[in-house]
């Protein structure tokens, strides 16, 4: 089990997250929800070991993940929010780089890469450098790189960004299948419909603090609201929506 205990992160005077605690269990997809600046990405980066918390702990099966970061990272797969890749490498070259850094066997690696590229529909572009890939194609490369080593924990930050409808449908099924395989999946997204379809439980963040944490069904029942969208609107309380909409129209016409 992956546990986050009283996680706090300060950037100078700015408090990105404060006293965040939750657990992600094997066999479930935990959704991280929140508006921009709510602390989702900071939480995800701490979970991946790319950022150290100011205080608090990340536990895996009771042990502090940062005590042996290398061993912890070996169990992780991560799709970052921004598709930062080595743009002068081709898709297979990038996947080979990741696979070798993960010290996968060469023969198995080549076979895996070929299968991933074919299944994700980018086999025909295997000789193109990533600079010429569309955002969706880059996202597919990131997803393949994240699961290349069959990780125990998969952390996905806006994984379907830029994907076409059919690819998104396939990958939604893939995310659920990962959980069915007994993996721990953390899924951070803005897209509420996707979170509702994919996640078993959700953690809703606002201004770096948890404002809701339960299964989607329980949250709906507790707040007596029909959908996750309504739950989110109620908890995050986006204020003056109509006023801001009219303001945007006025700015456009000016």
């Amino acid at each position, binding site marked *: 089990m992956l546990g986050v205990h009283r996680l706090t992160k*300060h*950037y*100078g005077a700015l408090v990105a997250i404060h006293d965040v605690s939750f657990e992600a269990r094997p066999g479930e997809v935990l959704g991280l929800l929140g508006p921009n600046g709510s602390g989702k990405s900071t939480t995800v*980066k701490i979970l*991946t*070991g*790319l*950022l*150290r918390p100011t205080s608090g702990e990340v536990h895996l099966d009771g042990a502090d993940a940062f005590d042996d*970061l*290398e061993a912890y*990272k070996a169990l*992780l797969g*991560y799709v*970052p929010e*921004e598709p*930062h*890749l*080595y*743009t*002068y*490498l*081709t898709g297979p*070259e*990038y996947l*080979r*780089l*990741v696979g*070798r*850094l*993960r*010290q*996968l066997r*060469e023969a198995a690696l080549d076979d895996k890469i070929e299968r991933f590229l074919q299944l994700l529909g980018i086999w*025909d*572009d295997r*000789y*193109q*450098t990533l600079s*010429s890939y*569309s955002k969706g194609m880059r996202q597919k490369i990131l997803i393949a*790189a994240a699961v290349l080593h069959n990780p125990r924990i998969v952390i996905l930050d806006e994984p379907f960004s830029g994907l076409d409808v059919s690819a998104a449908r396939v990958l939604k099924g893939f995310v659920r299948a990962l959980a069915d395989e007994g993996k721990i999946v953390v899924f951070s997204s803005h897209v509420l419909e996707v979170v509702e379809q994919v996640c078993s439980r959700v953690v809703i963040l606002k201004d770096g603090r948890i404002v809701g944490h339960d299964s989607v069904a329980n949250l709906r029942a507790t707040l007596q609201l029909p959908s996750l969208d309504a739950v989110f609107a109620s908890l995050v309380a986006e204020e003056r929506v109509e006023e801001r909409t009219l303001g945007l129209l006025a700015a456009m016409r000016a």
Partner: protein
Amino acid sequence: MAALPPRRRGRFEILCRAFVAQFFASESVTSAMQLRRAMAGPLAFLLVPALFMPLQMVTTFEAAAVRFPQMLEPLTRLMATVFIMYSMVAVGVIAGVMWDSLSFDRRDAMVLGPLPLGASTVITAKIAAMAMLLLLVSLSISLMTGVPFALVAGNHKSAADVVRHFVAHMAATLTAATFVYCLLVTLRALVGGVSGRHVALASVLRFLLFSGLLCFIVFAPTALNVTYGGRRRPTTLQMQTIPGWSPTNWFLGLHEWIRGTPGAEWDGGARRAIGFTAAVIVSAVATTTAGYRRQLQRALAPSADAGVHGGARLQRAIARLMLGRDQLARATADFVLATIVRNGSQQATIAINAAIGLMLIVGALLRTTGDAAPIIRPRTAVLWIPLVLVYWIGIGLRAAFFMPSDLPASWTFRFNGPLRASAFWAGTRAAAIGFMVPLALVADALLVPLLGFRAAAWHAAIVVAVALAIAEAAALTVDFVPFTRPYEPGHARLKTRWPLYAIGLYVCAFVPARAALHAAGDPAAGARIAETALVVAAALEIAGWWRSRKWQIDPAEEFGGESEIAVLDIGLVVPGALQQ
């Protein structure tokens, strides 16, 4: 008085300003800006002496003109050629540095394509921006050289001659600069369409342009020399002859034609200068126009690109031979080699350093007499040719390691790789050796036409041994995966480190060349060189393994944290306060 309403800038003006700004700035990452600044330093360092050298020659010209009045005209023509050459080389180097901005790229098409702008407005604005750059550079160079030269050369004649001389100088140098610049713009637009190869072509071109500038620095002082004889010996005048095929003669023809010097060769030269310059201007405009349309098509259909197939196969094979089945080391070696082969910044760094080596070689060879006899026999100035090139390529390679490439993507190493691993060092060392050894053999092959195959092959063993040692030393002096760290401002401390480079050159090029020269007829001396090379290689290997224990991937805090905040706030955050 009523205030004037703010002027609304037209689309053309806005575009033109944006294109001019592209020459000097990059919106990609801060490190690219720092890289550009880092390149601007050496450029200024090279261009300034290159400017002062011809100006200093004006005094030699004056002395020669006084002593040898009958030689005034040939002397004037020689000096004019030197200035024409400087104008061509300097503009060429500037264009080489601005290479990526000399034509439209796919990003231009993607940004400007959807905007309600006519293609003609975009293309005209780009051409205007390029013309402004040319005018800015060439006019300042021509004015700085033209005014003193016209005053000195015209001093022996009337005021009208001074003006005429100045006009001739300006016309010849500006036309020569325009010729080179438009030729490079044409080339840039043409190679922009050659997928996968334009980076390598740009690097070769930069190497040639920088070599041209550096060789000019070496060559210019030898063009004119006055040796004062005193009472017993006569004062002698030495002048370099410019070969008839040199394009500088066309522009010299224009110079002389404007000055009114009679002669059919000047008229012919002037016609060629004007004709060829007009032709390259037309071709630059045509290829730039075609380039924008091609980039618009590419932006719509990126998959039409042929893509890359492998690259650096020999280098990778050498690296793999050294690394065996070590996956982590192979990943590092392949990454290092792919980055060098496919990135202009890294290649430019290596090319500029190789150009410094070429300058030293030319300088050493020019110290001998004009005929070719001294260079077709083994001597230090000949045997050190491949060694000097290898040494400076090694210096360039090490410098390139510090140039970041796709820096935000370095999370790949931080997230997927172990934090500490000697395999990263092994991979970097293997990549450095894989990169250096083939180049060492190519450099040694330069000796074949001079010394014959047998002598060059024998010397190749020494050159490869030195290349191995330099590659080992390059890997020894970095402690991170190359290209994955931000460029540190002030990293290249040329002012304080130049004696180190000089000592390195002495040890890596001069000493082995001397030893090879002595060992030519002495097998025992050859054995001693081999022993020394083995001892050095073994010492570097041990030092490398020891050093590799300190190698590490930067731990967390990649996306922001205490260290980043401390840098951003510069002094406003008290160290230690962040932990409170």
